[in-house]
């Protein structure tokens, strides 16, 4: 045993030995074989018992709109596109502050024991319950008030998502002068794609070819020196002046542009704006991932010995960065448990997946036995994306520019920049120049964030119209509801401290995952099935996320109380973030209280009627 540990230490953590980055990918492949091929299949066969002869909601209630059976491979693509956004990319890169080993282990074991469990059980729960979504299910299985709390919970969660994504795009990516023109041109080209498809009715292959080539040309145009210097001058020069608090003019301006883009995406018809832009963006993201993976396989550098496998328990880079010659002060992310487990959300487990799985995928499942391939399969593929993201930091940057560059970028709040630069270094090995690759990587991330952000604003405006439309009729107006959602988002973007906002977003996301797992446990128990495979992850995630949210609330209130001369915007943002964290915890406690009561009732057989 000692020998094994010493070998591990020598191979992975030792200062002199080096290990190929391909081991990471091999480790991920083994996890997929074990997790999907053995654990997930055996749970499915012994507990869920999918019956290919049983009619699914898609075939039973087929209306050609929401309930429509789809081929399993088509649905796999749909599910993966719906669940993969900025989460599996940014979270793992930020979490590398504890060292790459904890990040890799949580991504792999999180997916193996929790991630796929949530996605698959959400799909099957909805399939077996007539295609009902989580609101209706929590109303029926947990308690009537659970539905209202869940929707409020989702609203706050989406608000945090807007703040976290808005800050990355507006403060980090768009402030790079080589990026904005590319993003704006890709959006314009997306609109052209919509016009070509829906109005001119051109062939989709021709449309794709023309628009994707134009999009690449647009990104390249953004890297031209004249364009860069113009964009820089718009942002107030190389050192953009402070506009208010600690927000520079460039950050303020580009965040505002992002919010305007989200507004247009929320109020314009979906075929006119969101859908065609998403379509062009998909090809950029797909080609980027393909080129990055291919480049990594050709290059397959060793993990640099200078890149720490483990830094310290508090995720503070100060001493590691100082050893690498970076003279910056870093804020501690927080204790490894629970903060790491919410910093990486989507790459390991994410509550958003349960919402997408129950409302979209479950209603299109043609055959019950397709559920595992679609739900668990897409989750394991996302795990692969998260591992690739870790590699952009560890080898993309670490093997070329060293650990110091990673620390420098993270210290400047540029987690998106880490991915862009790391991907560029990987793509360089398939012949793509690094200067273009960096802009491409930043546009890639911006588009990934935007495609989710304007759909989130759409959801928020419809939710506010439903809840407040009767008492405040203004909310029925699409523009009003969207503007209110954007003002709330802007408030957090301009005031919140990024690392805390990201942790809060991850905490809310993971808390929703624990709710989904709890709902699945109640459902399994009601049917007299083994529920521990969902219940144990639910308890683990609930305790972890509540601890993470409380710790974050404590950290932000402490910062306000103990830091002299704190900028007003940071003080206001910290207080708001702390209040949101406490509200989320209270909502979750009520939901869990009701969930436990439902479980107790089921155990005592009081809900025998429900079983029948």
């Amino acid at each position, binding site marked *: 045993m000692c020998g094994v540990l010493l070998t591990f230490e020598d191979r992975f953590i030792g200062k002199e030995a080096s290990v190929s980055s391909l081991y990471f990918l091999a480790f991920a492949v083994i996890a997929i074989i074990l997790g999907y091929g053995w654990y997930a299949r055996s749970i499915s066969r012994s507990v869920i018992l999918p019956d290919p002869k049983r009619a699914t909601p898609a075939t039973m209630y087929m*209306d*050609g*709109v929401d309930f429509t059976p789809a081929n399993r*491979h088509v*649905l796999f693509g749909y599910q993966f596109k719906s669940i993969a956004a900025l989460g599996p990319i940014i979270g793992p890169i930020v979490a590398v502050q504890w060292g790459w080993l904890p990040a890799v282990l949580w991504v792999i074991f999180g997916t193996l024991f929790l991630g796929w469990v949530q996605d698959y059980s959400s799909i099957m729960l909805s399939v077996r319950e007539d295609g009902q979504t989580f609101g209706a299910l929590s109303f029926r299985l947990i308690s009537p008030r659970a539905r209202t709390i869940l929707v409020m919970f989702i609203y706050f969660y989406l608000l945090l998502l807007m703040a976290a994504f808005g800050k990355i795009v507006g403060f980090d990516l768009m402030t790079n002068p080589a990026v904005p023109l590319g993003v704006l041109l890709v959006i314009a080209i997306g609109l052209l794609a919509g016009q070509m498809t829906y109005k001119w009715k051109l062939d989709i292959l021709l449309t794709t070819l023309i628009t994707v080539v134009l999009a690449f040309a647009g990104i390249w145009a953004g890297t031209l020196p004249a364009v860069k210097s113009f964009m820089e001058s718009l942002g107030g020069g190389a050192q953009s002046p402070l506009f208010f608090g600690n927000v520079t003019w460039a950050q303020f301006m580009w965040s505002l542009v992002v919010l305007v883009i989200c507004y247009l995406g929320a109020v314009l018809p979906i*075929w006119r704006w969101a859908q065609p832009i998403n*379509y062009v963006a998909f090809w950029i993201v*797909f080609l980027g991932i393909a080129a990055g993976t291919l480049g990594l396989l050709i290059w397959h550098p060793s993990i640099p010995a200078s890149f720490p496998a483990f830094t310290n328990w508090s995720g503070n880079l100060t001493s590691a960065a100082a050893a690498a010659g970076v003279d910056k002060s870093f804020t501690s992310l927080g204790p490894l448990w629970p903060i790491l487990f919410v910093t990486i959300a989507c790459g390991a487990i994410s509550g958003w997946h349960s919402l997408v799985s129950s409302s979209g995928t479950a209603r299109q499942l043609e055959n019950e036995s397709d559920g595992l391939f679609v739900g668990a399969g897409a989750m394991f593929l996302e795990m692969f994306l998260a591992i690739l993201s870790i590699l952009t930091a560890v080898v993309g940057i670490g093997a070329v520019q060293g650990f110091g560059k990673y620390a420098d970028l993270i210290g400047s709040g540029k987690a998106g920049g880490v991915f862009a630069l790391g991907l560029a270094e990987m793509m360089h090995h398939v012949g793509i120049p690094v200067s273009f690759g960096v802009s491409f990587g930043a546009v890639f991330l911006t588009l990934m964030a935007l495609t989710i952000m304007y759909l989130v604003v759409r959801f928020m405006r419809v939710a506010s119209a439903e809840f407040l439309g009767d008492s405040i009729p203004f909310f029925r107006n699409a523009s009003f509801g969207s503007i209110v959602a954007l003002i709330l988002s802007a408030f957090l973007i301009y005031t919140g401290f990024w690392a805390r906002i990201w942790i809060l977003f991850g905490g809310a996301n993971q808390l929703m995952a624990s709710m989904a797992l709890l709902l699945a446990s109640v459902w399994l128990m009601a049917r007299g099935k083994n529920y521990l495979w969902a219940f144990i992850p639910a308890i683990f995630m609930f305790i972890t996320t509540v601890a993470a949210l409380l710790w974050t609330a404590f950290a932000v209130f402490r910062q306000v109380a103990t830091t002299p001369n704190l900028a007003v915007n940071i003080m206001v943002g910290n207080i708001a973030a702390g209040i949101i964290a406490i509200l989320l915890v209270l909502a979750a406690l009520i939901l869990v209280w009701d969930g436990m009561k439902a479980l107790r009732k089921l155990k005592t057989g009081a809900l025998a009627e429900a079983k029948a």
Partner: protein
Amino acid sequence: MKNPFAAQGESSLGRQASRLIKVFRDVLYGATVYEMVRDLRKQRAQREHLFILVVFGDLIGVPILPPYYTLRLLPYALEAFPGWKRTLLRERDMTDLCDMEA
């Protein structure tokens, strides 16, 4: 003389390759155009539901609009009627909106 086993092997390999290409194409379709197709289906269903509303009086025997026109339209509306009934009567929930992007 052709080796039957070799021929069988080639055709099997060819079949597997074409199957893999089809799977890849389906996955790409699911991640790209499928969303557009779903949205178009939704738009078509909305138009059809308006159409059914026009002829609804005749469906229940109450001539709301001049029956000369609506009765002639009725056969075209009947095909979409079961889907319309299900969509109209289905209980909706706020969390249904999470699928709104499609």
